[in-house]
Protein backbone atom coordinates (compact mmCIF):
# COMPACT_ATOMS: atom_id res chain seq x y z
CA UNK A 1 0.00 0.00 0.00
CA UNK A 2 1.39 3.37 -0.94
CA UNK A 3 0.13 6.89 -0.58
CA UNK A 4 1.65 8.76 -3.45
CA UNK A 5 1.34 12.46 -3.86
CA UNK A 6 1.70 12.54 -7.62
CA UNK A 7 1.20 10.50 -10.75
CA UNK A 8 -2.30 9.40 -9.89
CA UNK A 9 -3.72 10.00 -13.32
CA UNK A 10 -0.67 8.86 -15.21
CA UNK A 11 -1.10 8.01 -18.89
CA UNK A 12 -3.26 4.95 -19.06
CA UNK A 13 -5.56 3.45 -21.60
CA UNK A 14 -9.20 3.85 -20.67
CA UNK A 15 -11.71 1.76 -22.54
CA UNK A 16 -15.43 1.45 -22.23
CA UNK A 17 -17.91 3.16 -20.00
CA UNK A 18 -17.23 5.98 -17.63
CA UNK A 19 -19.86 7.20 -15.26
CA UNK A 20 -19.73 10.35 -13.17
CA UNK A 21 -22.05 10.71 -10.23
CA UNK A 22 -22.27 14.04 -8.46
CA UNK A 23 -22.42 13.49 -4.71
CA UNK A 24 -24.36 16.13 -2.83
CA UNK A 25 -27.04 14.21 -0.92
CA UNK A 26 -27.36 10.80 0.68
CA UNK A 27 -29.45 9.44 -2.20
CA UNK A 28 -26.49 10.10 -4.53
CA UNK A 29 -24.54 7.51 -2.51
CA UNK A 30 -27.13 4.88 -3.47
CA UNK A 31 -26.96 6.00 -7.10
CA UNK A 32 -23.15 5.80 -7.16
CA UNK A 33 -23.07 2.26 -5.81
CA UNK A 34 -25.76 1.16 -8.27
CA UNK A 35 -23.61 2.45 -11.14
CA UNK A 36 -20.62 0.63 -9.67
CA UNK A 37 -22.59 -2.60 -9.63
CA UNK A 38 -23.80 -2.11 -13.22
CA UNK A 39 -20.34 -1.44 -14.64
CA UNK A 40 -18.78 -4.17 -12.50
CA UNK A 41 -21.34 -6.69 -13.66
CA UNK A 42 -20.63 -5.85 -17.29
CA UNK A 43 -16.92 -6.42 -16.64
CA UNK A 44 -17.62 -9.89 -15.26
CA UNK A 45 -17.07 -9.47 -11.50
CA UNK A 46 -18.54 -12.15 -9.22
CA UNK A 47 -21.57 -11.42 -7.04
CA UNK A 48 -19.32 -11.18 -3.98
CA UNK A 49 -16.92 -8.78 -5.70
CA UNK A 50 -19.85 -6.62 -6.87
CA UNK A 51 -20.99 -6.30 -3.25
CA UNK A 52 -17.46 -5.43 -2.10
CA UNK A 53 -17.20 -2.78 -4.84
CA UNK A 54 -20.63 -1.31 -4.01
CA UNK A 55 -19.76 -1.22 -0.31
CA UNK A 56 -16.42 0.51 -0.95
CA UNK A 57 -18.17 3.09 -3.16
CA UNK A 58 -20.68 3.68 -0.38
CA UNK A 59 -17.91 4.39 2.13
CA UNK A 60 -15.91 6.80 -0.02
CA UNK A 61 -19.06 8.57 -1.24
CA UNK A 62 -20.17 9.09 2.33
CA UNK A 63 -16.74 10.48 3.18
CA UNK A 64 -17.31 13.10 0.47
CA UNK A 65 -20.69 14.03 1.91
CA UNK A 66 -19.54 14.15 5.53
CA UNK A 67 -16.22 15.95 5.08
CA UNK A 68 -16.58 18.00 1.88
CA UNK A 69 -20.39 18.34 1.51
CA UNK A 70 -20.11 17.63 -2.22
CA UNK A 71 -17.88 16.09 -4.85
CA UNK A 72 -18.08 13.35 -7.43
CA UNK A 73 -17.51 9.66 -7.97
CA UNK A 74 -16.07 8.59 -11.31
CA UNK A 75 -16.36 4.91 -12.18
CA UNK A 76 -14.71 3.37 -15.21
CA UNK A 77 -13.36 0.27 -16.82
CA UNK A 78 -9.58 0.01 -16.93
CA UNK A 79 -7.28 -2.25 -18.92
CA UNK A 80 -3.69 -2.61 -17.84
CA UNK A 81 -1.12 -5.32 -18.66
CA UNK A 82 -3.82 -7.52 -20.15
CA UNK A 83 -6.01 -7.25 -17.07
CA UNK A 84 -9.48 -5.76 -16.86
CA UNK A 85 -10.69 -3.96 -13.82
CA UNK A 86 -12.81 -1.22 -12.37
CA UNK A 87 -11.47 2.10 -11.19
CA UNK A 88 -13.33 4.30 -8.76
CA UNK A 89 -12.25 7.84 -8.10
CA UNK A 90 -13.82 9.89 -5.32
CA UNK A 91 -13.00 13.58 -5.71
CA UNK A 92 -13.89 16.56 -3.62
CA UNK A 93 -12.74 20.10 -3.00
CA UNK A 94 -13.33 19.88 0.70
CA UNK A 95 -10.99 20.65 3.58
CA UNK A 96 -8.55 17.86 2.65
CA UNK A 97 -7.01 15.32 4.98
CA UNK A 98 -4.11 16.92 6.89
CA UNK A 99 -2.63 13.57 7.92
CA UNK A 100 -3.40 10.73 5.50
CA UNK A 101 -1.45 8.10 7.44
CA UNK A 102 -3.52 8.94 10.50
CA UNK A 103 -6.81 8.82 8.55
CA UNK A 104 -5.83 5.39 7.21
CA UNK A 105 -5.33 4.06 10.71
CA UNK A 106 -7.79 1.46 11.85
CA UNK A 107 -10.28 2.96 14.27
CA UNK A 108 -9.15 6.53 13.73
CA UNK A 109 -12.19 8.74 13.50
CA UNK A 110 -12.97 12.40 13.58
CA UNK A 111 -16.11 11.41 15.43
CA UNK A 112 -18.39 11.49 12.41
CA UNK A 113 -18.04 7.83 11.51
CA UNK A 114 -16.86 4.53 12.83
CA UNK A 115 -13.28 5.17 11.86
CA UNK A 116 -13.33 2.49 9.22
CA UNK A 117 -14.36 4.34 6.09
CA UNK A 118 -10.94 4.62 4.46
CA UNK A 119 -9.05 1.66 5.99
CA UNK A 120 -12.15 -0.51 5.48
CA UNK A 121 -12.58 0.43 1.82
CA UNK A 122 -8.91 -0.35 1.27
CA UNK A 123 -9.49 -3.92 2.39
CA UNK A 124 -12.43 -4.32 0.01
CA UNK A 125 -10.44 -3.33 -3.07
CA UNK A 126 -7.15 -4.49 -4.68
CA UNK A 127 -5.49 -1.10 -4.97
CA UNK A 128 -6.06 2.05 -3.00
CA UNK A 129 -4.48 5.49 -3.00
CA UNK A 130 -5.34 8.74 -1.28
CA UNK A 131 -4.13 12.11 -2.46
CA UNK A 132 -5.13 14.99 -0.31
CA UNK A 133 -4.05 18.47 0.42
CA UNK A 134 -5.63 21.05 2.62
CA UNK A 135 -5.61 23.41 -0.37
CA UNK A 136 -7.07 21.16 -3.09
CA UNK A 137 -9.27 18.64 -1.37
CA UNK A 138 -9.10 14.89 -1.63
CA UNK A 139 -8.95 12.23 -4.33
CA UNK A 140 -9.38 8.61 -3.38
CA UNK A 141 -8.54 6.17 -6.17
CA UNK A 142 -9.50 2.51 -5.82
CA UNK A 143 -9.15 -0.40 -8.25
CA UNK A 144 -10.29 -3.95 -8.35
CA UNK A 145 -9.30 -6.51 -10.99
CA UNK A 146 -11.48 -9.17 -12.54
CA UNK A 147 -10.27 -12.75 -11.88
CA UNK A 148 -7.04 -11.62 -10.31
CA UNK A 149 -6.30 -15.22 -9.30
CA UNK A 150 -7.77 -16.76 -12.44
Amino acid sequence: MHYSTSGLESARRHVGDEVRVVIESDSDIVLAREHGRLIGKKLGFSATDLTLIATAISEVARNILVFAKNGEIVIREINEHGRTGIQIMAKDNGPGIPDIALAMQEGYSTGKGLGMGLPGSRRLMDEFQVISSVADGTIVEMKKWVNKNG
Partner: protein
Amino acid sequence: MEVPILKQGGYLIATIQAALSDADLIKLQDALVEQVGKYRSKGVIIDVTALDVMDSFATRTLRSIAHMIKLRGAETVICGIQPEVAFAMVQLGLTLEGISTALDLEEGLALLNKRTREREAARGR
Protein backbone atom coordinates in the same frame (compact mmCIF):
# COMPACT_ATOMS: atom_id res chain seq x y z
CA MET B 1 -38.02 4.51 -0.25
CA GLU B 2 -39.95 4.04 2.97
CA VAL B 3 -39.78 0.71 4.78
CA PRO B 4 -43.20 -0.83 5.48
CA ILE B 5 -43.73 -1.93 9.08
CA LEU B 6 -46.20 -4.73 9.62
CA LYS B 7 -47.82 -5.29 13.01
CA GLN B 8 -48.27 -8.96 13.70
CA GLY B 9 -49.47 -9.96 17.16
CA GLY B 10 -46.98 -8.59 19.65
CA TYR B 11 -44.32 -8.06 17.03
CA LEU B 12 -43.38 -5.44 14.47
CA ILE B 13 -41.89 -6.69 11.22
CA ALA B 14 -39.97 -4.19 9.09
CA THR B 15 -39.11 -5.56 5.67
CA ILE B 16 -36.52 -3.58 3.76
CA GLN B 17 -37.45 -3.88 0.09
CA ALA B 18 -34.80 -1.95 -1.79
CA ALA B 19 -31.56 -0.05 -1.32
CA LEU B 20 -31.97 2.55 1.41
CA SER B 21 -30.55 6.02 1.68
CA ASP B 22 -29.24 7.25 5.02
CA ALA B 23 -32.40 9.33 5.46
CA ASP B 24 -34.60 6.24 4.89
CA LEU B 25 -32.69 4.36 7.59
CA ILE B 26 -33.13 7.17 10.07
CA LYS B 27 -36.87 7.27 9.24
CA LEU B 28 -37.08 3.54 9.91
CA GLN B 29 -35.33 4.04 13.24
CA ASP B 30 -37.74 6.76 14.34
CA ALA B 31 -40.81 4.84 13.18
CA LEU B 32 -39.81 1.64 14.99
CA VAL B 33 -38.92 3.33 18.26
CA GLU B 34 -42.26 5.15 18.20
CA GLN B 35 -44.40 2.17 17.19
CA VAL B 36 -42.91 -0.16 19.80
CA GLY B 37 -44.50 2.11 22.40
CA LYS B 38 -47.71 2.74 20.47
CA TYR B 39 -48.47 -0.97 19.96
CA ARG B 40 -46.74 -2.16 23.13
CA SER B 41 -44.74 -4.57 20.99
CA LYS B 42 -42.55 -7.21 22.60
CA GLY B 43 -40.33 -7.76 19.61
CA VAL B 44 -39.10 -6.26 16.37
CA ILE B 45 -37.80 -8.05 13.29
CA ILE B 46 -35.83 -6.16 10.67
CA ASP B 47 -35.64 -8.21 7.49
CA VAL B 48 -32.65 -7.06 5.42
CA THR B 49 -32.83 -9.83 2.79
CA ALA B 50 -33.21 -7.27 -0.02
CA LEU B 51 -30.37 -5.06 1.22
CA ASP B 52 -27.41 -5.40 -1.15
CA VAL B 53 -25.01 -3.20 0.83
CA MET B 54 -24.49 -2.87 4.57
CA ASP B 55 -21.89 -0.17 4.94
CA SER B 56 -20.67 1.45 8.15
CA PHE B 57 -23.63 3.84 8.33
CA ALA B 58 -26.28 1.12 7.83
CA THR B 59 -24.59 -1.14 10.37
CA ARG B 60 -24.30 1.63 12.93
CA THR B 61 -27.95 2.62 12.43
CA LEU B 62 -29.21 -0.97 12.78
CA ARG B 63 -27.14 -1.30 15.94
CA SER B 64 -28.63 1.92 17.30
CA ILE B 65 -32.15 0.76 16.45
CA ALA B 66 -31.64 -2.52 18.33
CA HIS B 67 -30.28 -0.67 21.38
CA MET B 68 -33.13 1.86 21.38
CA ILE B 69 -35.72 -0.91 21.04
CA LYS B 70 -34.09 -2.67 23.98
CA LEU B 71 -34.35 0.51 26.04
CA ARG B 72 -38.04 0.57 25.13
CA GLY B 73 -38.39 -2.91 26.61
CA ALA B 74 -38.55 -5.05 23.48
CA GLU B 75 -36.25 -7.42 21.59
CA THR B 76 -34.86 -6.94 18.08
CA VAL B 77 -33.78 -9.61 15.61
CA ILE B 78 -32.08 -8.73 12.33
CA CYS B 79 -32.63 -11.39 9.72
CA GLY B 80 -31.67 -12.14 6.14
CA ILE B 81 -28.13 -10.76 5.88
CA GLN B 82 -27.00 -12.13 2.49
CA PRO B 83 -23.76 -14.13 2.23
CA GLU B 84 -21.97 -11.52 0.07
CA VAL B 85 -23.12 -8.76 2.42
CA ALA B 86 -21.82 -10.72 5.42
CA PHE B 87 -18.51 -11.16 3.61
CA ALA B 88 -18.22 -7.45 2.85
CA MET B 89 -19.12 -6.52 6.45
CA VAL B 90 -16.39 -8.76 7.86
CA GLN B 91 -13.84 -7.36 5.38
CA LEU B 92 -14.87 -3.87 6.36
CA GLY B 93 -14.52 -4.71 10.05
CA LEU B 94 -18.20 -4.16 10.86
CA THR B 95 -19.90 -6.16 13.60
CA LEU B 96 -23.38 -6.45 15.05
CA GLU B 97 -22.08 -7.53 18.44
CA GLY B 98 -24.77 -7.96 21.05
CA ILE B 99 -27.50 -7.89 18.37
CA SER B 100 -29.58 -10.99 17.66
CA THR B 101 -29.48 -12.20 14.07
CA ALA B 102 -31.27 -14.98 12.22
CA LEU B 103 -30.96 -16.63 8.82
CA ASP B 104 -34.40 -15.62 7.58
CA LEU B 105 -37.81 -14.37 8.72
CA GLU B 106 -38.92 -17.82 9.90
CA GLU B 107 -35.85 -18.28 12.09
CA GLY B 108 -36.19 -14.69 13.26
CA LEU B 109 -39.75 -15.26 14.45
CA ALA B 110 -38.72 -18.48 16.21
CA LEU B 111 -35.91 -16.64 17.98
CA LEU B 112 -38.23 -13.82 19.06
CA ASN B 113 -40.79 -16.32 20.38
CA LYS B 114 -38.07 -17.98 22.44
CA ARG B 115 -36.75 -14.66 23.74
CA THR B 116 -40.13 -13.29 24.74
CA ARG B 117 -41.11 -16.58 26.45
CA GLU B 118 -37.90 -16.44 28.48
CA ARG B 119 -38.63 -12.84 29.38
CA GLU B 120 -42.18 -13.63 30.52
CA ALA B 121 -40.92 -16.60 32.54
CA ALA B 122 -38.32 -14.42 34.25
CA ARG B 123 -41.01 -11.86 35.12
CA GLY B 124 -43.33 -14.53 36.52
CA ARG B 125 -40.78 -15.66 39.02
